[in-house]
């Protein structure tokens, strides 16, 4: 979510709340020999307020699972999550008189700080990275669909290669075997193959024509062998594991060189197929980049979320025990 003018209301409200809390704290501190502790009435009020903010921020996950309920726009929840979650830290610090206290409260404070810091980190990423993704990944796909799209691309790549091969080509059979799981996943049909060699010669053709046809057939077979070698050696492995940075095709420059080198070896009739393969490899690179950016963009949640649940459980215990004693 971008931090823009739509956040102004939340930002102002948060600052006002923080100012009120701080003033109350300072007033209590100056009127008594010591700062108001967590068990004073002001401390309890600040604790309750901070806990309410934390609870509201934590409810965002539940809100996401209740999209159909009329609970206000999701964007408002996101802004509230961001600002109230951020506000909870200073309020809780005031609640604890800027002391971490005992073991449980120290753990709670550390959790809260880690959560807020990771949240701020995430907010910064959410603010900046979508634009970066749009630029770096023009063919952006829904993240959850990337694997499916990559499978389709593998089938498509095999299909365009197979178009130039006779049905009994052993390499194609092997590729088909390797793609069987992918085909099951995507529901694609088996790629079709051309029947026989691409060059046909009339039975009554003269020797020269036959020789020309034989020469053309040899050129086609030579190009087909180069195409199959390139597909089997580089394209297929890259499409299977496009997230690896090691293959030559993982780099746009090196991929261009590799395709140009193959282009000189293949028959001109295979040029469209090679172009398709190049496009598919380019899209696969984008998918790999999207995956990497997505993990950066959402990886912090793997820390943010479990810490939050732990915080909620421990906060509940803290509330009960603090009131008990």
């Amino acid at each position: 979510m971008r931090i823009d003018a739509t956040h102004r209301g939340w930002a102002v409200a948060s600052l006002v709340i923080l100012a009120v809390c701080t003033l109350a704290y300072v007033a209590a501190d100056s009127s008594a020999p010591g700062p108001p502790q967590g068990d004073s009435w002001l401390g309890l009020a600040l604790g309750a307020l901070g806990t309410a903010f934390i609870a509201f921020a934590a409810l965002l996950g539940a809100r996401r699972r209740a999209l159909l309920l009329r609970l206000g726009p999701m964007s408002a929840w996101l802004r509230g999550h961001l600002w109230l979650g951020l506000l909870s830290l200073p309020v809780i610090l005031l609640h604890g008189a800027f002391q971490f206290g005992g073991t449980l409260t120290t753990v709670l404070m550390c959790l809260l700080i880690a959560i807020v810091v990771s949240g701020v980190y995430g907010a910064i990423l959410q603010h900046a990275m979508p634009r970066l993704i749009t630029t770096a990944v023009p063919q952006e796909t829904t993240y959850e669909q990337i694997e499916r799209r990559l499978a389709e691309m593998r089938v498509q790549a095999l299909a365009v290669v197979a178009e130039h091969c006779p049905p009994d080509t052993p390499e194609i059979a092997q590729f088909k075997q390797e793609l069987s799981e992918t085909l099951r996943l995507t529901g694609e049909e088996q790629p079709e193959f051309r029947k026989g060699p691409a060059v046909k010669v009339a039975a009554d053709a003269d020797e020269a024509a036959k020789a020309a046809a034989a020469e053309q057939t040899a050129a086609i077979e030579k190009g087909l062998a180069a195409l199959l070698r390139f597909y089997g050696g580089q394209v297929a492995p890259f499409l299977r594991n496009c997230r690896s940075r090691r293959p030559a095709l993982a780099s746009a420059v090196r991929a261009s060189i590799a395709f140009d080198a193959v282009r000189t070896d293949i028959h001109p009739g295979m040029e469209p197929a090679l172009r398709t393969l190049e496009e598919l490899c380019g899209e696969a690179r984008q998918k790999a980049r999207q995956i990497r950016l997505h993990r950066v963009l959402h990886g912090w949640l793997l820390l943010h979320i479990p810490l939050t649940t732990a915080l909620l459980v421990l906060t509940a215990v803290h509330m009960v025990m603090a009131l008990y004693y």
Partner: protein
Amino acid sequence: MPYKPKPLWDRFNLFYALRVHRERLLKRALAAGGALLAAGWMIATLVRGDERPFSSGPMSIGHAMLADNCAACHTQATHFARFWKSDADKAHTLNDGCLSCHGWTIGHDTETRSAWHQLSAPHAASHPDAREPRAACSSCHAEHAGFVRLTEMDDRHCTSCHADLRPLDAGSPFARSITQFGKRKRNGDHPDFAALSRPDPGRLRFSHDTHMDVAKRPFPGIPGEPLSCDDCHRAGDSQRPWRFGLARVLGVERLPHELASAGADEVDKSGAFMQPIRYELHCAACHKLDVGSLYPIRGTPDGWVAHSTPGEIRSGIIGQLLRFLREPGEQTPPESDLEPRPAPGADGKVDTADELRYIARNAVTIERRLYDVAGGGLCTKCHAVDYRPPPRQTSSAFETPLAVIAPTSIPRRWFLHGSFSHARHKTVGPLVKAAPEPVAAAAAGCIHCHPGATTSRQSADVLLPNVDACRGCHAPAHHAGGPLLGGVSDRCVYCHTFHRPPSQEPRTSRDPSGAGLSSARLLAAESQGKGGPARESEAAATTQGALP
């Protein structure tokens, strides 16, 4: 038929949102894991019965041993008390936990259970800051605030009232406004010590000037031997023998262990206070009570009268005169002004009535020698004595009232509203480089704070340092045009206590009344020390018989 890719709308599974993606699954697993881990920790803690994690902070130094025993303070009555008790009642309940141990040490009263600085409830209630007469101990002593001393409280606990005492009590003898001690932006407004505003109540005739300066010392007792402050003034933690005590007269290094113990028990062994001045320990070597050249006194040392009350002295004199009469061979000293012995009867024995008359008249003679100012009475050199000498030859000790020796009234404790520890100021001496000429270097530290001690000529001089002398160290660190000064705490609680009323006497482990040791007691102890238990009765008999 050539390969034809699917149309765009067929390439995607439009129900992907309903499937649980593995990353989403990972998030859910981690969320559950975080909650389970936290819950597991709490459950394990509760099952173990370990309450420490629930403490709101580390315990103070004095209560560290209670870190795993919450119930010691948070009794059953305090559980969820916030919901069903007022603040005052809750505080009261918590106070019970404190007072169960500290009730005997802080001098709380049963009415308030918090002492409330010895203020009555109406006073406390009328003062704007006295919000709750039944104040919570925790309102000042904030526990769970770390490994600190609970008594080291912020000055604001005190200045919340003492910054303006006007509403409290118009007749209060205390300063109306005290906001700080050390010098900060302005001088501290702590008033000077009350003890400096009135003369020394001590009735002992004493001149520091004469004693400290060898040249001015008129008596020949120990010629040329300079005195140091600690020859007479030593804190209770000192075990060194005294230089000018009775031990020197008796020719021993120090008085026996029992005597030392007896003396030490009277003083504060922490070294906070100076040991009381005792004739037997500090004066006897020079100020001898030797009347042996005039009278047949066989005390210990021989010829000495006891340093005791007039009544005990008279009893001793009577005993000695009776002994003298019963020992016909003993002669009166040549310079004696005693009457001649009464003549014995036909049976060689002195008539009992004659004996009584002799003893009564001559006891008065000896007393006159001790108490009569006109006659240069021994005791009157140091003590104020109310004594009216009866007519010579006609008076009788049995009819003459006893002399009245004015109590010395040397204050055992000067700062009645504050505490001071000499032991904690021992480092002042090494810090002081220069000492006045007649003063030994060891006494430089003493003179630094008590500059008048070398020149004072009369007992009425109060030789305490004033408050500015304290501020030299007890103030925030500052440069006064030279070296760094101050830096030592100037908190109120550094000197003042809240709960216990000021005591005129330092607390001792025995004999809190501060009653002095008589020569008889001292020497009886000495005899017991020499003779051991087997000779105890003999020693006691000798003591009673030999000592006036």
